[in-house]
């Protein structure tokens, strides 16, 4: 069971460096978070399974997942996480720029916990991140580890 003091571990799966930079910046003002950034789907799965370089990686409390990542697509990552017994309890928030209905539908049908379309304006984006944090870290009770 995690306590209030433990920093929140966030896995950010995002291939665009500028989007990653902006997301991290927006998350900075939050309660204490550790943002772990991976840039493609294969790295993301390695991190989650603590393989290779990620042997000592912490288990994330929450995953922010972009859909269009190289090497392994975000949708595949989502599918793998949600079908893996040990990983599927981690809330996955799809954070992507796509507003296509097909993407939204697909994500939810793969059991994404929620879907957020990245606003184009940074101020709005900060507000969205703020709301997301408020909801997931203050309102919601996150599952404990193992």
């Amino acid at each position, binding site marked *: 069971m995690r306590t209030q003091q433990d920093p929140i571990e966030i896995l950010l799966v995002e291939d*665009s460096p*500028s*989007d990653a*930079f*902006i997301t991290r*910046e927006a998350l900075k003002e939050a309660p204490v978070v550790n943002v772990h950034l991976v840039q493609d789907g294969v790295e993301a799965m390695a991190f989650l399974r603590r393989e290779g370089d990620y042997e000592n990686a912490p288990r994330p409390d929450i995953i922010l997942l972009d859909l269009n990542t190289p090497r392994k697509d975000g949708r595949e990552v989502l599918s793998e996480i949600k079908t893996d017994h040990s990983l599927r309890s981690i809330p996955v928030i799809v954070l992507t*720029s*796509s507003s*296509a209905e097909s993407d939204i539908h697909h994500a939810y049908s793969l059991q994404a916990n929620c879907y957020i379309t*990245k606003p*184009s*304006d*940074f*101020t709005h*984006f900060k507000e969205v991140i703020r709301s997301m944090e408020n909801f997931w870290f203050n309102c919601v009770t996150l599952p404990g580890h193992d």
Partner: protein
Amino acid sequence: MQHAGSRVRFRVTASRKHKDPVRVEGPAPQTLDTFRRFSKWSAIIAIVVGYHVMLGWMFGISVLKTPSPIYSTMKMNSAICSVVAGVCLYLLAMDRGRLSRKWRAFIRICAGLVASLALLTVIERVLRMDIGVDHWFPFSMENGAPARMALMSALGFHLIGLALLLLDNPRTARISEMLTLTSAAISLLAIAGYVYQAEAFQGQMSLYASVVILLLSGGVLCARPDRGLMAKITSDSFGGIMARRLLPATLSIPLVLGWLQHFGHRAGLYQSEPGLALLTVANVTVFISVVWWGVNSLHRMDTKRRQAEQELQETAAKLSRSNADLEQFAYVASHDLKEPLRAISGSVQILRERYHGNLGPEAEEVIRHTVDGALRMQTLIDDLLTYSRLATREAPLEPTDCSTVLEEVLANLQSSIRESKAVVTHDPLPTVKADRIQLLQVFQNLISNGIKYRSQRTPKIHVGIEDRKNEWTFSVRDNGIGIAPQYADRIFRIFQRLHTRKEYSGTGIGLAVCKKIIERHGGRIWLDSEPEEGSTFYFTLPKP
């Protein structure tokens, strides 16, 4: 200072949606003219023959009354019927729907005369009484007594008269056809009799009369080649082509063969039974050949048509693939174009926040322009995507109730209507054939423009409708700031704006979208406006 917004001017060449297919089966105008000409000439011949018969009676020239003394003569009344019916038919054949009331009345009187005169004669013949019809006109004495039309002639003329009367009334047009066919059959019977039989008999229809009635019957049928029975014969379809080629054969061949059989029998070439057998075989042979020829033609034409259809289907498939590609391309392009914009806009805003106190006021302005620029670019990309979707996301045109569409628009614009205290009114709106989502876009764009470009007065917007014969004309009138007439054309172009961004926000795509949608529906859109007087936007939608 006029800031004309972005100068992007490329055209999104999206595919054109097929309009409703042209009806291939309509008759070709040359064919129609040929038929009408036949009508006119039948009428002329009827008049000429009738006139000469009348001369025959007036001056006692017997050849003008009958080709041979053993046959019955064409009577004066028949001649009169012939001339009057001929005049009537000629006028009707010439009429393209533009004849005045007076002429129509005249035609009706003529037809009525023919029908009545003939009818009286029929009654005389059937009831064996004398109504005196045969005395009415001078020069009608024959062998010391007034000459009376044969029963069949009278019937024939009566049917023609009725057919002429009922020709143009849509409810009775088919009856007219039937009557004409009957009179043609009667005259054909008489003519066949003349062909096969040399002997005359009492009460026989005169040869001239039977020819005249046959011609008149054909003439009446051909006077309206684009309606009813004749429409199928004149049409461009396989049926029409077959009919035009086969009907003359079916009309003439039995007659010819029958005559040959009769002639051969009379000339003693064979007895009547073998003659009949010969006739039958001849008929069978001729008809099989004609039908076989027809089958071949049909097969050829059908193959050609199937090929054309297949090509059409392939083109349609290609079109739909190309549309899908365009949609995909537009979506991906807009998606990928927005990512660097986020980087620019976001980074600069982060810059502003991080170094808030340390940057001077000029830096603030620079940052503002950068962020603004990025935001505008994003809106432009969205607008381009919307514009390109007009072509790729077309739905088929279906009956759409404009009042419910308008309700939805007003619901969508609720907050801006409330904010501006706008009053939106409308006439009762019809149901039209349209793409609902696109029609909604048009109304929404026009009404929101009316609200946006408002004057000091409370915005009042009225949606009007005018019912024209072939189209609906919609109008959206506002009391806003108006538009100078010299810009009336420009504003429908994509990204054309008349105001600076400071005065009014927006990229200038709304009216371009409206124009594209209305034109796709086959309508027109235009503007009536004066500065300070408000504007009225008109657009038309064709009726199905």
